């Protein structure tokens, strides 16, 4: 049998690898483009590339909360109502609800807070954030109560069987919800109570006094017992039942402030949700046509530099394709109209970044800072827009660098 020898003497490995790499990258770009296209989701039923919209997730409710101001001095009443309103708003805003309105009203001489929400978040989660006062205080057992009494097995859970102490939610600087190993070596969520420096000594003395005793953490009348260990310094950490979702909710309830007034929910009304009717397939086609039309005008009527224009167009299409592909593959629910606004921002941002090279760093830095401010201080859609635009900006920067590399290498390879 004749042996066949392959000679590698004249074969240049470097350019060949570079060529293969470019083919691989080009294939990846085609895949990203196809996934992002609006009609790709209809090609194959087995693999879904659907854009998950928030349209079916939205719900809206009105909660009427009656505030109990009977225990409050007249001079403090308005301040406490305003504080209650602020804390409920803060909880909902931190939870990332899309639309929140809270109105202060008077109904039959009763002080009312009317909370209206429109959101795609979990309904039970939002219900809990609105309807729980979550008044936290550390309590000690009443001496005359018998927790071993078989006729009242739940006595240890009832707030009325405990005496309050001076330590309430406001005595703690922060309540950290974190996953830690419990006694059995399993990971569980714990609420770790961190004190203000001024309360540190008093609380440590309090725990020392009740060493090897069971004290409790009362929340809205129900108590979680806590056995004080002998170790020093003592940490006050309560086990939290439930998973990550429960921990997230408790984090908001613990750390959004202490509601000064007790309240009860007297009415809950479901409101019809008005969602802007939008055909995202037609809109995508229109946006794509708009982008192409714009670049044709820039190139042929305004006679802009062809290299800059083609780089800008390529980077724009790549960023939009990557962003939509990411949203589709991660099944992130989106507001279609917000996505359309983000696409417009991508078109204009990339054009400006490529045509203003001298101030590219300054533009990016100030945009990043502005979006961070939106995430931290924004409310409703502003927060969502800030968070999404920050990711989009990172994609824009990547696309610009990648496009320069890709087009240069492509030109070189085609010229060979």
């Amino acid at each position, binding site marked *: 049998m004749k042996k066949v020898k392959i000679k590698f003497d004249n074969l240049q490995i470097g350019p060949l690898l570079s060529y293969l790499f470019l083919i691989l990258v080009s294939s990846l770009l085609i895949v990203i483009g196809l996934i992002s296209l609006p009609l790709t989701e209809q090609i194959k039923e087995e693999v879904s590339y659907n854009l998950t919209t928030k349209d079916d997730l939205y719900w809206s409710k009105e909660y009427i909360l009656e505030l109990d101001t009977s225990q409050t001095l007249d001079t403090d009443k308005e301040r406490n109502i305003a504080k209650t309103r602020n804390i409920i708003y803060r909880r909902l805003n931190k939870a990332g609800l899309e639309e929140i309105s809270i109105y202060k009203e008077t109904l039959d001489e009763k002080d009312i807070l009317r909370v209206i929400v429109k959101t795609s978040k979990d309904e039970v989660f939002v219900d809990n954030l609105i309807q729980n006062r979550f008044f936290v205080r550390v309590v000690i057992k009443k001496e005359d109560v018998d927790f071993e009494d078989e006729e009242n097995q739940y006595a240890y859970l009832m707030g009325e069987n405990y005496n309050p102490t001076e330590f309430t939610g406001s005595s703690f600087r922060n309540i950290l919800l974190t996953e830690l190993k419990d006694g059995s070596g399993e990971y569980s969520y714990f609420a770790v109570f961190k004190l203000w420096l001024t309360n540190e000594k008093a609380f440590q003395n309090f725990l020392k006094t009740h060493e090897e005793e069971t004290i409790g953490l009362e929340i809205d009348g129900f108590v979680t017992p806590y056995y004080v260990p002998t170790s020093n310094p003592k940490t006050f950490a309560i086990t939290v039942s439930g998973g990550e979702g429960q921990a997230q909710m408790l984090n908001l309830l613990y750390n959004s402030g202490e509601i000064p007034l007790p309240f009860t929910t007297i009415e809950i009304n479901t409101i019809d949700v008005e969602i802007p009717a939008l055909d995202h397939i037609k809109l995508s086609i229109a946006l794509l046509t708009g982008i192409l039309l714009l670049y044709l005008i820039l190139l042929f009527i305004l006679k802009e530099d062809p290299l800059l224009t083609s780089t800008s167009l390529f980077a724009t299409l790549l960023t939009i394709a990557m962003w939509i592909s990411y949203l589709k593959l991660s099944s992130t629910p989106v507001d279609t109209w917000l996505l*359309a606004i983000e696409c417009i921002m991508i078109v204009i941002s990339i054009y400006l970044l490529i045509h203003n090279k001298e101030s590219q760093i300054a533009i990016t830095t100030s945009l990043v800072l502005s979006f961070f401010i939106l995430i931290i201080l924004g409310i409703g859609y502003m927060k969502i827009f800030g968070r999404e635009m920050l990711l989009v900006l990172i994609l824009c920067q990547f696309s610009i660098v990648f496009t320069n590399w890709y087009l240069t290498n492509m030109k070189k390879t085609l010229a060979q």
Partner: protein
Amino acid sequence: MNIFISVLDGWSNYELIMIISMIGLITIVGILSVYFLIKDKRSVLFAIASSITTNLLIISTLFFVDLLDVGLSEGYSFVFLLTATFSAMNVTTLNNYLIHNKKKNEFDIDFVTRDHFEDSLKLISFICLFLSILIAFIDGEIRNVLIASGISSVLSIAINHLLARMFFKDKRGGK
């Protein structure tokens, strides 16, 4: 004054504090970035004037929308977001031309303002083209938000250009 009264009645203190701090901080970031980028007194003054007029324009737009009895909802926060972003982009292009031209031996402010004018026109065309595409496909409140945002963005860019002509009216640039 209705809008201001309804703002005070309908908004919690928390909301007001957050919104005011957000607008204030974003404005400061914009002005500081101009200062660190150009270190030119007139450019910083121009950025301050542009921020003030843009914010006034946004308030006027919201006031006008309220007069039409459309009902201001949270969606109208996009009037602020879009107008402020487009206005900031417009200021940035002027600054870019200033930096670019200062590197040349013969600095001509007329050339800069002319380039800025062309760029402002392009930005206005971008906004009109894309917002009209969106407006054609979206209905309800979001359409009104987009129309209000589009009008205030275009006006803010036009005012920026007039301000640029005022601040950089002499033939020679510099500090």
